[in-house]
């Protein structure tokens, strides 16, 4: 589903990604862990074309994103990026709901405009999903009147309304108050249980352990370790994984 081969990215002289390869199968749940600044967010942003990369290749559901060394991507590159974005939904750490639209407008705007779905049909589907996440009564609210947890659940609903084949979550609970982390993770868990292909970067080790098919450990722009959650958390073999986990699980 998502294949990343030998990804290199430079910021000026700084060699951020030193050859990252990752293969995410259909229906697989891959959790990225690792210290802040290890490149997890940037990696996710490469997958949907928010960041360019200088070497390597990314293939999402048979659409190839090529490395871009020129300052401006070609129109073919742009079209590939657009196609990938239609297949991959993304949820940000900072929610990024459109503040001038209601919850319902946030969700239906893109399906109506981009996919050409009739507005009443899109609204019906959005309301059904809002009901599932117990937010039907907030359909007409503005994002500023919602809690962080509610905003993030709406952001997930917005991404899902585009019917993506895979979802990327970039630290979806990192800017939430602790009591709201659970409600967001439970929505993600439901999604994962339905078989959605998911790549998620997080510091929630409990979630990683419970929901992941595979845990991938990032450090200094490299994948230093990968394996099933039990192996990574209970019996880590890599020294750097051990030291990272001992710091975060203390």
């Amino acid at each position, binding site marked *: 589903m998502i294949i990343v081969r030998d990804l290199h990215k430079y910021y000026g002289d700084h060699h951020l990604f030193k050859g990252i390869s990752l293969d995410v199968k259909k229906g697989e749940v891959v959790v990225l862990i690792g210290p802040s600044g290890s490149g997890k967010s940037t990696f996710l942003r490469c997958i949907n074309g928010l960041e360019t990369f200088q070497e390597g290749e990314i293939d999402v559901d048979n659409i190839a994103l090529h490395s871009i060394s020129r300052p401006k991507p070609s129109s073919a590159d742009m079209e590939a990026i657009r196609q990938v974005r239609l297949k991959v939904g993304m949820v940000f750490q900072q929610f*990024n709901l*459109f503040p001038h639209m209601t919850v319902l407008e946030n969700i239906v705007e893109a399906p109506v405009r981009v996919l050409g779905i009739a507005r009443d049909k899109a609204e019906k589907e959005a309301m059904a999903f809002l009901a599932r996440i117990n937010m039907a009564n907030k359909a007409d609210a503005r994002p500023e009147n919602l809690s962080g947890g509610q905003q993030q659940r709406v952001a997930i609903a917005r991404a899902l309304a585009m019917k993506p084949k895979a979802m990327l979550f970039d630290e979806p609970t990192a800017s939430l108050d602790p009591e709201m982390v659970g409600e967001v993770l439970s929505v993600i868990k439901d999604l994962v249980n339905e078989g959605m292909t998911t790549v998620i970067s997080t510091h929630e080790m409990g979630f990683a352990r419970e929901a992941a098919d595979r845990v991938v450990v990032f450090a200094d722009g490299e994948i230093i370790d990968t394996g099933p959650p039990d192996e990574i958390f209970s019996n880590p073999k890599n020294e750097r994984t051990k030291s990272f986990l001992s710091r975060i699980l203390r």
Partner: protein
Amino acid sequence: MTTSIMETVWLPLRLSIQVSIVSTIMVALTGTALGYLLSRKDFFAKDVIDAIITLPMVLPPTVTGYYLILILGRRGFLGQFVYNWTGWTLAFTWQAAVVASFVVSFPLMVKTVRAAVDSVDPELEKASLLLGKGEVETVVKITLPLAWKGVLAGMVLSFARGIGEFGATLMLAGNIPGKTATMPLAIYSATQSGDSVLANSLVIILTLLSLTVIYVTNRLSRKGLTFGRDIDYKRASNL
């Protein structure tokens, strides 16, 4: 008496409003586009373009007007081609007053819009792009609605600057009663000819017009400020 009021008060007033409205519409369209580009894009000679369009803010308006004559006058850099092809020249027409207003108010619009777009979180635009929307649609649906107060403020400033424009207009359009003599020029003429009744009338009208514009704008933007709070009121009444 009726005719003289028509000519001495109404004509300059109508001309000022007409010139400022046309100029503001042109400034709004082009200034918003350039303000957005300066905020979000990198392109060739960006800083030079920024400096050139800002120049009329610091130059004396007469100097700006002089440049406009050099460029657009009958024997001007561009004006001569227009005159040779069409026999028409911009100088000393009401359209010249529009051009003068446009040039002096353009930087106000561009700078205000640029600052407003700067304040819009680029991550929201990225979220829009990730939902499959195109760049133009993202600008129209996300960026500009979020920056609308800056766009509105830029338009008001431009309109006010247009109403008050004197020096560049005098240079390029002249001071022809009924044709290019806008309010500020008519006030100048009235004062020079010692017609203090007319000068007072024009000054009062111009002041009232400016006050009205500022008042209406303040009302509009306050209405905008509360758009998210309507829901709170509803919720409060349900409790």
